[in-house]
């Protein structure tokens, strides 16, 4: 079962998170109206893997850019302005632009995939206040330990605690 707690203050939220950690309660989701370093520190999560998406996307983009330009030029060789048929320097522009394009889109895709959005359901473990002024903690825990969790959250000054099944 899940417990959703809403906090008014930042430091209270931070204390609660660290307390839960100390109690080896793992499945904790924290909500914050705006990114705060304190919370990130408290949760101390692994580095986001989005950067890999960026790297791969950018690389593919650049390769495709150069390839399409060179291949089409050689596919039907036409001389313009006495220039070589496949000219690398101008094709760099194509390579660069496509690197940026594909790279950027891949990055966004990375963010979506990693943070599991678009989310289909908004009901479970969420409270509209979290996008307003409140911080939130959502713990999914076995019923028998739920009481401890709730008690911990209240101790740290949760404005209110809600149970979900």
């Amino acid at each position, binding site marked *: 079962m899940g417990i959703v707690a809403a906090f008014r203050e930042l430091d209270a939220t931070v204390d609660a998170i660290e307390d839960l950690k100390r109690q080896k309660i793992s499945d904790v989701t924290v909500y914050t109206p705006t*990114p*705060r370093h304190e919370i990130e520190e408290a949760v101390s999560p692994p580095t986001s893997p989005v950067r890999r998406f960026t790297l791969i996307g950018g690389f593919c983009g650049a390769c495709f850019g150069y390839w399409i*330009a060179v291949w089409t030029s050689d596919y039907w060789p036409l001389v313009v302005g006495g220039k070589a048929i496949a000219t690398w320097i101008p094709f760099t522009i194509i390579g660069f632009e496509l690197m940026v394009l594909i790279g*950027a889109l891949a990055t966004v895709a990375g963010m979506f995939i990693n*943070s599991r*959005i678009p989310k289909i359901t908004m009901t479970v473990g969420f409270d509209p206040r979290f996008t307003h002024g409140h911080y939130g903690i959502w713990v999914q825990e076995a019923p028998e330990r739920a009481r401890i969790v709730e008690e911990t959250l209240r101790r740290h000054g949760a404005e209110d605690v809600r149970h979900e099944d």
Partner: protein
Amino acid sequence: MATVARPRGATDLSPRPNVASANQQLPGVADYEQVDRDIGGSLTPTAGWFGALAVAIALFLWGAGTWTYQIYWGLGNAGYNPPVMWGVYIISFVFWVGIGHAGTLISAILYLFRAGFRTTIYRCAEAMTVFAVMTAGLFPIIHIGRPWKFFWLIPYPNWRLIWPNFKSPLVWDVFAISTYLTVSATFLYVGLVPDIAVLRDRATNPVRKRILAVMSLGWRNSEKEWRHFARMYLFLAAFSTPLVLSVHSVVSFDFAMAINPGWHTTIFPPYFVAGAIFSGIGMVFTIIIPIRKFFRLQHYVTINHLDAAAKLCLFTSLVVGCAYLVEFWVAWYSANQFEQKYFWNRVFGEWWWAAWIMLTCNMVFPLSLFSQRLRRNPGWLFILSIFINLGMWFERFVIIVPTLSHEFEPWQWAHYAPSWVDISILIGSFGWFFMWFLLFIKQLPVIAIAEVKEIVPPRLRSPHPHEDAIDVTGRHQAYEPDTPGEFD
């Protein structure tokens, strides 16, 4: 505006200028809830807004009608006068692309530079960017002789087995502009997602709530989302920075790659990029100053922010002015009579007035920003921004028309005068731009809610001795706050 309770201190607060401190940045904003209230409240449509929208749409329709007319009867109805084969449309294209450069600059480059003053204006600038590029993208199509064949510039597999010419600057344009449009639109949208979530949760109208729910992609402010979001935002910024520089460089290649006197010069890319940013900032002023007034957001977009932006404007103006002068020097030093003749003709020839409009508006007037009083005077900034827009349009005019009308072959020297068709379509483009922009500012937050919350002091259970210290748990002394205005 009646619906908006005039928030506390929504006047032009003038705190001590150039003070770098977190809690001083938005003295008028108490807590997160107020941010939602103020910004969310500014979204209610007003009569004035409907009026403006109506005008914009009317102008757009007039322009669109003129374009269909031009397509049917031929480009001859525009003012072209061979060899001046490029005219108002390409001028406006470059103009609008230039406008489109401020947004990404502010949201991306200043983000990397941790320039705090961007926070409250970047959303506005980004939206401006997207719509400006949308406008600019139309002009090449309007300009070409057979618009219905425009897609031939895009490399797609086809049964003719033929492809575009990747050596042509115009194809580079296609790639640069479309990439720029896509990336900046994405940038704008993903930045909006958390704010849309805020609106979603505040919305009362169920239909609106539903739409916002879809648009917000189910964003719920979880710490995990924020983590990936921050990383993505960083990389997007990192990508956009070179992109901004590349796009207008590529646009400048349209000219620099041709051999015409006045075009064929290596100074063009930096010169164009500076000019673009300059014109962009000008347009930002033109837009943000009325908005902060009518939306009562002076306590968000403070004088400090305008001041900082004005400094950026002054800097780019100096760069542009330098470029102008260097051009003349190069022409003289090249000992190339075509170049020399052209540049003489530029300032003393048939088009002298255009050249002088350009020089005064872009070089002389902005010098006033050396005065701190004028920098901190929104009224003056607004007036100046109008001059800048005008001057930058004429900069492109001066680059294109005099060159084409007066180049190598004396027998083909000619004049040029726009016709009613050119003018109508130019006006229509402003209608098109403002139509989108007006629709935007009443549907979506014109100031980034989530990011503003970042610079609003958080609520604390145990008030800390040092109000302005960010680290309330007192455990991470090593952390350096990105305080706004620290680069002022």
